[in-house]
């Protein structure tokens, strides 16, 4: 039962109440679930098929934990996906993520050194792009996965523009 359903902005954890919080694309969830199945599916299959062939059918039960992990991952990915959101404010960008380990990152526009949009082949198939912000601090770790390419570009242009307008030296 998913009890942690929450819309953008009504976060239970750390956060700033605002109704302009935006979620990330649903494609991320599909992509991550696909990857989960691609990793765990063959493993479970081997675990279930190989022991009977080798004459030890009871060991086929080993596939069960794998399946359980897959099921839990299926659910946890959804939970994690729902936790991602971002908010553009007048002077800074907020990124909130995580369910068990929650993190809220605030990056003032003037501190952005570089805004990067990347999109791998799989991500392109799902119509996704990833936005990465770099500041002079290596620890900043501000990235938004799973934006629609148009939205990523809009965000990139806006951030670059705001960054230039508000930039400050080191």
């Amino acid at each position, binding site marked *: 039962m998913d009890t942690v359903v929450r819309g953008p902005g009504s976060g239970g954890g*750390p956060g700033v109440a605002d109704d302009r919080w935006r979620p990330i694309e649903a494609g991320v969830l599909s992509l991550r679930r696909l990857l989960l199945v691609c990793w765990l599916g063959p493993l479970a299959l081997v675990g279930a098929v190989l022991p009977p062939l080798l004459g030890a059918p009871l060991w086929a039960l080993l596939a069960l934990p794998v399946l359980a992990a897959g099921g839990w991952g299926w659910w946890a990915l959804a939970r994690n996906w729902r936790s991602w959101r971002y908010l553009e404010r007048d002077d800074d960008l907020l990124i909130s993520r995580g369910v*068990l380990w929650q993190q809220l990152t605030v990056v*003032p526009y*003037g501190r952005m050194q570089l805004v990067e949009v990347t999109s791998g082949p799989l991500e392109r198939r799902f119509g996704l792009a990833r936005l990465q912000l770099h*500041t002079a601090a290596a620890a900043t770790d501000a990235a938004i996965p799973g934006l629609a390419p148009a939205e990523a570009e809009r965000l990139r242009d806006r951030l670059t523009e705001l960054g230039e307008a508000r930039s400050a030296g080191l």
Partner: protein
Amino acid sequence: MNGPGDQPPDAPDAPDAPAENGAEIPVGQGKRLHPLTPWRRAWAPLAGLFAVALQNAAEVRDQAEGAGLGWLLLGVAVLVLGATAYGYLSWRVTRYLVTDTELRIRTGLLFRRTAHLRLDRIQAIDISRPLLARAFGVAKLKMDVVGSGSADELAFLAEREATELRAELLARAAGIAPEAASSAGEAPARELHQVDARMLGWSLALLGSGWGALLGALLVTPLIWLATDSVLPALAVLLPLLAAIWRGSLGAFLTQYGWTVSESPDGLRLDHGLLQRDHATVPPGRVQAVKIVEPLLWRPRGWLRVQLDVAGEGNVGGLLLPVATRETVRALLGRILPEVDLDQTLGAVNPAPRRARWAVPVWRVGYGHGVTDAVFVARRGRLRRTHILVPHAKVQSVRLTQGPWERRLRLASIHVDQGAGGTATARLQDATYATDEVARQAERSRLGRRTAAPDRWLTARPAGGAG
């Protein structure tokens, strides 16, 4: 690429030189390094050869007897000549040039490389005099530049030339008019503080780490020897421990001996070292964070150690003062962060709430956090108490994190990232307070940046304002 064999690669009359180097170092301009430099380059391959010969001494002797000593000597002579020629040629092609905006360093015999160091991006320039170089009156000039990561260096220059060049570069970087820069000479320095050798010795003796390593060496090594009944494993353990003891005691004493902080218009100057004299300049406007460390045994005496985080590669360990009294630190801190008062800043720190003891039992007492008008302060450590001060204007991003256990206890951590790659973390704060604090910190650093002094600190102040 031209081979080095047929013609000297830097020959100014080479027909393609102007076109190739026009944008870099114009023909006939630029200066060379000290003529002693090639010997440093020739020295390395010779030492390598000698080491190889030593390792295979028996084989070498057989060869020598078989082939005759003459051939061996000839071989060595050819090698020495080759190394010398290589050293000489690479010295010939290495040139540097100071323009209005850049320092250009051209190196490389076969693969030519011209480094353009932007003067306004220079964080600090250090002069280093290794023992042998001191004997010959030469010095090394190291430049820290934002974004380059590695420290570019000019090795070696005559000592006088190195000081002059450093003064010129710093003056230009600080925004003095280029015409005046070269004639400005070395900016006058005023000594602010010198660390007393006795105090330094005592402070190192009162540090726990050296004694811990000594204790480890005395206890663990015999045990391992007894257990394994062979010397080698014991030695393998002993050597790193000995290195740690050295670094914590005599080695630290030698490098930190005569630690002098002086003030000049281009920043704070640090001179230190007994055998090897090192020299560093810290431009005050580029300090990203200040770390104040109080080891347990220093606290009754009120001694502090101050470290700086400077964007780019800082000086050795970022040390500003290896040991000093509170009064000295208070006075010096004012030179780096003018609006910061030491007592008021450290007094602003509030400890983590009591319920945090369920997250971090004993060490909770060490954690604390406070904010003043000028800086964000985070405290950690129970034995070795450390305060990290980040000026609001230097904050790059603010983060709030909360793990499951912290959430149960309604706690959260605030991370403040600064430009030198470090993070000041205020752990175990009340969750609602932390959430508000993150928003307020973002606001403060935004406003702080607007009022912050520009990077060219010299132009920002009226002449003589430094005094």
